[in-house]
């Protein structure tokens, strides 16, 4: 399964390097290195971060509906990036947008644990996360409502829909280190997540206190998803769907899902990004459909199928 997924990721990466606005084929080396390489690698990294943090958060919160969006981390990252854009920071200094996203994710993570109280547990984190994401989307709506001009409004809205068009090596250099660090932190949480399968008391009695596991899960997610959102905008559904896709094949043990969730998330976003690039070539579209819209369009039917399988 892992080998199959790894092969799929490699195959999709190769396709991603070969497919572009000009059609299929090996492009000039400048386009390959300056445009397609960063875009393809970013799709893989952002997808891996989303898929893995979805699997970790579902395991840690013992909740099949958990994903990075639930805890307000994605919302915080989006808000941070929009703030950077809004005050013109990103116009003067290009990396301000992704840096703002990362700062937003970090602040959301800190606020999450401040709100969840002294002994964070799954229910307190979920409630605090829902409150945070409501706050983040309210502030985003406020930023949109007060947008200085229609162009800014359109630009923010389009950015929020998610996408990897025109991402450069600079974006890759900025986002890759925090995403990779987040992936490493999250991959190490397997035993702590397994211990939580039998409840918080059992986890503590096995020497894996819930508070520590959830703290590292949130920090890892903030790095991986925050940096991903910072360069790719809001991309939903990947974190939610990936663990559900894997459980029928790999079993339900949380640690058993982690490496596969990173690979499957990468494959899913690489595939969605390929679709986004292919759409204007195949359909009468003037531009690419936003990536976040595509993942939701692809993800929702999967969830419906899972809902029907879960029903007795």
């Amino acid at each position, binding site marked *: 399964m892992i080998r199959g997924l790894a092969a799929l990721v490699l195959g999709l990466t190769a396709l991603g390097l070969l497919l572009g606005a000009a059609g299929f084929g090996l492009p000039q080396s400048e386009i390959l290195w300056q445009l397609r390489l960063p875009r393809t690698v970013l799709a893989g990294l952002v997808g891996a971060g989303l898929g893995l943090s979805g699997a970790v958060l579902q*395991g840690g919160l*013992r909740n099949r509906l958990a994903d990075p969006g639930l805890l307000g981390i994605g919302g915080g990252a989006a808000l941070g990036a929009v703030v950077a854009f809004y005050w013109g920071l990103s116009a003067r200094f290009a990396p301000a947008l992704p840096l703002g996203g990362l700062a937003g994710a970090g602040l959301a993570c800190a606020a999450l644990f401040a709100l969840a109280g002294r*002994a964070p547990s799954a229910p307190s984190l979920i409630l605090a996360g829902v409150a945070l994401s409501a706050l983040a989307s309210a502030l985003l709506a406020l930023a949109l409502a007060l947008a200085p001009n229609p162009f800014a409004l359109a630009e923010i809205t389009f950015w929020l829909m998610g996408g990897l068009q025109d991402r450069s090596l600079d974006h890759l250099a900025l986002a890759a280190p925090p995403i990779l660090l987040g992936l490493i932190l999250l991959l190490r949480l397997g*035993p702590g997540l*397994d*211990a*939580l*399968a*039998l*409840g918080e*008391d*059992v986890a*503590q*009695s*096995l*020497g*894996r206190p819930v508070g520590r596991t959830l703290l590292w899960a949130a920090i890892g997610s903030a790095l991986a998803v925050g940096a991903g959102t910072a360069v790719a905008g809001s991309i939903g559904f990947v974190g939610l769907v990936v663990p559900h896709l894997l*459980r029928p094949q790999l*079993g*339900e*043990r*949380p640690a058993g899902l982690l490496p596969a969730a990173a690979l499957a998330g990468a494959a899913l976003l690489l595939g969605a990004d390929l679709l986004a690039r292919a759409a204007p070539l195949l359909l009468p579209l003037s531009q690419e459909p936003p990536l976040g819209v595509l993942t939701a369009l692809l993800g929702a039917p999967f969830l419906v199928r899972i809902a029907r399988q879960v029903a007795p």
Partner: protein
Amino acid sequence: MIALTATVALGGRPVLHDIAFTAQPGQLVALCGPNGAGKSTLLRALAGLLPGLPGRDPRQVAYLPQGARCAWGLTVAEVAALGRLPHGDAAAAPIARALTLCGLDSLRNARVDRISGGQARRAMLARILATEAPTLLLDEPTADLDPAAAHAIMALLRRLAQAGATVIVVLHALDLARDYADRMVVLQDGRIIADAAPADALPAAARAFGLPVGLDTQPRLLPPAAA
């Protein structure tokens, strides 16, 4: 051996007063008493799970909480393997031994959410046996099981104690405590009001529940002959 001296307040409410408790290897100790007497709190304190009290080495003390359930559809073998987490290994031998002791060999690959309540409880038991901890703490391991399943679990705990383990069990079923325990500790309102052999502690337990004690002349279920 496990010992605890503690006064415990949870959320500002005193739950245990001046408890001094010790249990020796080879003993099966039943903690009895009315709801709210502090039995589960005492067990959690012994397990090192209460803030402000010393923690325990998870390789020395294994704890099975009341009504433990698995959030995911793990297999029976995967649940038992969780007992190896404190050791950081997945040693096959202790897991296989625990599954055999609990009579789960044929159910290794069954999902715990798709087997009977009694079988699932035995899977939870296999998890704490796989730790190979010398001290076992169990909160109501026989609750809502049928009498045969309840006797089977108590008989297994009895054998483990005879083999040298320190076994401390919270029990509501006084007849099981009387039939299997070496020692009955009765709690009421956060205090130990009796600590003796079950036959001697039973009158105090009955008083704590406000029930009369008499000699039973009616037919009743006995522990299996093998126990």
